[in-house]
């Protein structure tokens, strides 16, 4: 086992998933994060938050050189361990069943194939699930040729393998070893079933079929994406991450599959991102529409209609995968936290904040959906009209802003501008469909919001829009004013805003979302560079006609991805490494937006 406190870097993980849950696999061959039965439930492997909170490791003994890559066009991970004696390739996936075959499949199957690709090497297995975020150690019962059953839990969990395993009672785990020669293969299959008889699928050739069907499923999805511009690999990897986080059973899109990976070493900005933020989801769907994935957009709109019924007409900032509104925040004091970053939180207290920008992002996405050929039924049109009326009532109120600050509400300029976007797009939708809303009132409110922003949200002395009315601080979200059409990218006020942001928020060539030394968000602790803001800067530069500068920045940013192309929420300002919850939909969606902006302007 790893020594206590011996945490891999966040960038040493890669994600696999089945659009229902996800697992993080370290470059040591260890699954160290997986929640069951869904993304937002309790972890069964949680070593990323505490070395004693559960893992499933398969790796050669001794020192090895490690290389990793996803099988092209998939979320199936291949990790190769090389030593002087040979090389072992470990292929990991969460199985996606072949729906054409009416077979019984486990609710989740984590399938791991170990192949010796050269020489001869010994591989070691350590399987140590811990239930309920590491609170309870597993016990095991042998089930003959079906493998081992985890007992003492309410769900069905079976591990089958063609590597002989034995119980290590002292450490509450199963262990095994196998010496493989070139060409030999072994399998491990962890099957999870929530409340019915477990389904234990055969190993060998049948396992190979399941692996192939998973690869084929992802490749099939990837083939639907219509993007032939530059940086295709980066864009498709990002799209695959977003699809992995798009819950198949509800249509919701998760912000990230993890909780409490700290925004800065030691905490305290440790949040649970395993929920569906209206903002992030709208942006993800915007990206899917850009890539031609209309089905995902329709799924999200259906989810939205269902999920927001309980809070209608107000939108909550976030919901759980199935529209649950109560996401009370709790601390898991029994967990050490990633590299000691306490507290570990589940739930999210920001769920009932007022964040006005979400209405703009949502309406912009719906408008884009309509532009892409999507249609809206009378119920959806009624819902949007209700949202519009709600925005007209709320836009003049102070809010917590896009960054979910934990301090008294303020008049955030970006929030006001997004209210303008919401009403502007609603007006455009109302031109196309018969909606129960007064168009003249929408136009009047749009004018009033714009006049107020130009008067109070712009500082003549700085030549820049500011974070909140009457302040001198800036906010990287203001870069998005150009994307949403509030201001032309080349407008002097936007150019001035970009220059001011670059001057004030840039550290070591990376943009922060706001100054972290002024208590902007209610915390005094420093933080790293917020990755999406940097892609927004590249997008802004492309849209403003500074193509070469944008390209240079974009390529530099792509260099901050980990070895398999994944981004976290932030980039270490000093280290350049991924920091925070991982992988982060917001960052990947921003990458896609920047790449498509570069493509459009190159083509233009």
């Amino acid at each position: 086992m790893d020594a206590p406190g011996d945490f891999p870097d966040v960038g040493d993980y890669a994600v696999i998933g089945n659009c229902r849950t996800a697992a993080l696999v370290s470059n040591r061959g260890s699954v160290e994060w997986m929640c069951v039965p869904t993304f937002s439930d309790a972890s069964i492997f949680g070593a990323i938050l505490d070395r004693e909170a559960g893992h499933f490791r398969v790796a050669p003994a001794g020192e090895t050189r490690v290389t990793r890559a996803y099988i092209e066009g998939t979320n199936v991970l291949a990790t190769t361990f090389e030593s002087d004696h040979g090389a072992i390739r470990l292929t990991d996936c969460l199985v996606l069943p072949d729906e054409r075959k009416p077979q019984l499949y486990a609710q989740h199957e984590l399938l791991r194939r170990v192949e010796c690709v050269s020489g001869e090497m010994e591989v070691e297995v350590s399987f140590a699930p811990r239930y309920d975020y590491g609170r309870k150690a597993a016990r095991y019962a042998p089930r003959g040729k079906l493998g081992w059953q985890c007992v003492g839990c309410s769900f069905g969990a079976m591990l089958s393998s063609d590597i002989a395993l034995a119980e290590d009672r002292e450490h509450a785990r199963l262990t095994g070893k196998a010496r493989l020669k070139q060409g030999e293969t072994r399998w491990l299959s962890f099957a999870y079933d929530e409340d019915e008889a477990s389904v234990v699928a055969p190993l060998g050739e049948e396992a190979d079929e399941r692996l192939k069907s998973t690869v084929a499923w992802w490749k099939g999805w990837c083939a639907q994406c219509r993007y032939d511009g530059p940086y295709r690999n980066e864009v498709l990897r990002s799209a695959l991450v977003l699809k992995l986080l798009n819950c198949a059973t509800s249509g919701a899109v998760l912000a990230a599959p993890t909780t409490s990976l700290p925004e800065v070493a030691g905490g305290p900005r440790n949040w649970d991102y395993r929920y569906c933020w209206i903002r992030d989801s709208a942006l993800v769907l915007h990206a899917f529409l850009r890539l031609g994935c209309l089905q995902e957009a329709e799924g999200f709109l259906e989810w939205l209609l269902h999920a927001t019924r309980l809070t209608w007409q107000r939108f909550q900032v976030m919901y759980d995968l199935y529209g649950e509104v109560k996401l009370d925040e709790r601390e898991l004091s029994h967990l050490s936290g990633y590299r000691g970053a306490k507290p570990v939180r589940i739930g999210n207290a920001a769920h009932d904040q007022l964040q006005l920008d979400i209405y703009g992002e949502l309406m912009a996405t719906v408008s884009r959906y309509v532009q892409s050929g999507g249609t809206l039924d009378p119920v959806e049109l009624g819902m949007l009209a209700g949202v519009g009326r709600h925005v007209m009532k709320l836009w003049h109120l102070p809010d917590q802003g896009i960054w979910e600050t934990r301090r008294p509400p303020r008049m955030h300029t970006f929030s006001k501008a997004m209210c303008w976007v919401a009403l502007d797009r609603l007006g455009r939708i109302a031109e196309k469909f018969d909606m129960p809303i007064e168009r003249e009132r929408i136009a009047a409110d749009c004018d009033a919001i714009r006049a107020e922003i130009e008067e109070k949200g712009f500082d003549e002395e700085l030549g820049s829009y500011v974070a909140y009315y009457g302040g001198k601080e800036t906010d990287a979200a203001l870069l998005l004013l150009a994307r949403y059409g509030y201001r032309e990218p080349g407008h002097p006020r936007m150019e001035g805003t970009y220059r001011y942001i670059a001057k004030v928020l840039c550290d070591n060539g990376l943009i922060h979302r706001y100054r972290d030394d002024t208590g902007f968000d209610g915390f005094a602790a420093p933080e790293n560079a917020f990755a999406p803001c940097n892609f927004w800067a590249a997008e802004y530069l492309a849209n403003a006609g500074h193509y070469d500068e944008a390209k240079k920045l974009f390529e530099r940013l792509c260099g901050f991805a980990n070895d398999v192309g994944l981004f976290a929420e932030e980039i270490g300002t000093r280290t350049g490494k991924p920091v925070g919850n991982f992988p982060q939909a917001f960052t990947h969606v921003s990458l896609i937006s920047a790449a498509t902006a570069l493509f459009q302007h190159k083509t233009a």
Partner: protein
Amino acid sequence: MTQTASEIASILIWGFAATAALSGVMFGAQRMGYSRLSIPFLIGTIFTGDRSAAHALGLVVYLLGGWLFAFVYYFIFASIGRAGWDLGLLIGAVHGAVLLVMLLPLLPYVHPRMASEYEGPIRGRRLQPPGFLALNYGYRTPLTTIVAHALYGLILGAMVSLT
């Protein structure tokens, strides 16, 4: 309505009520994490490997089975010459015990999609067998199964004694 028709109608009505109560306890035990034994799922998977279809089909067969067993209970009461909630409860508990001790352990030999611990999973046979007392589906399974069947018998016994 003749007396026989009236008796059949009562058996059907109370048989449905007893089956609903039995199912309620079994589903409740599943949802609360006490047991993973789902008899409708095990029945449905005899006919299809499609999980959703198995649930629907299994439930229909299970409800029909519940009615059929109501007649069996009625004939048992008739053959003994008395009925009552206490006798029903006893017969139901024995019914549950027989299911656990004799019928469920036989499933791997007759269920076309159930694997066995001796042969391991093979193509098409992937369901974990229940094992002795269906303990593979959770250590509280014997308790919840006997309680559910005792409740089934109690309702039928009370019904027959009242009517």
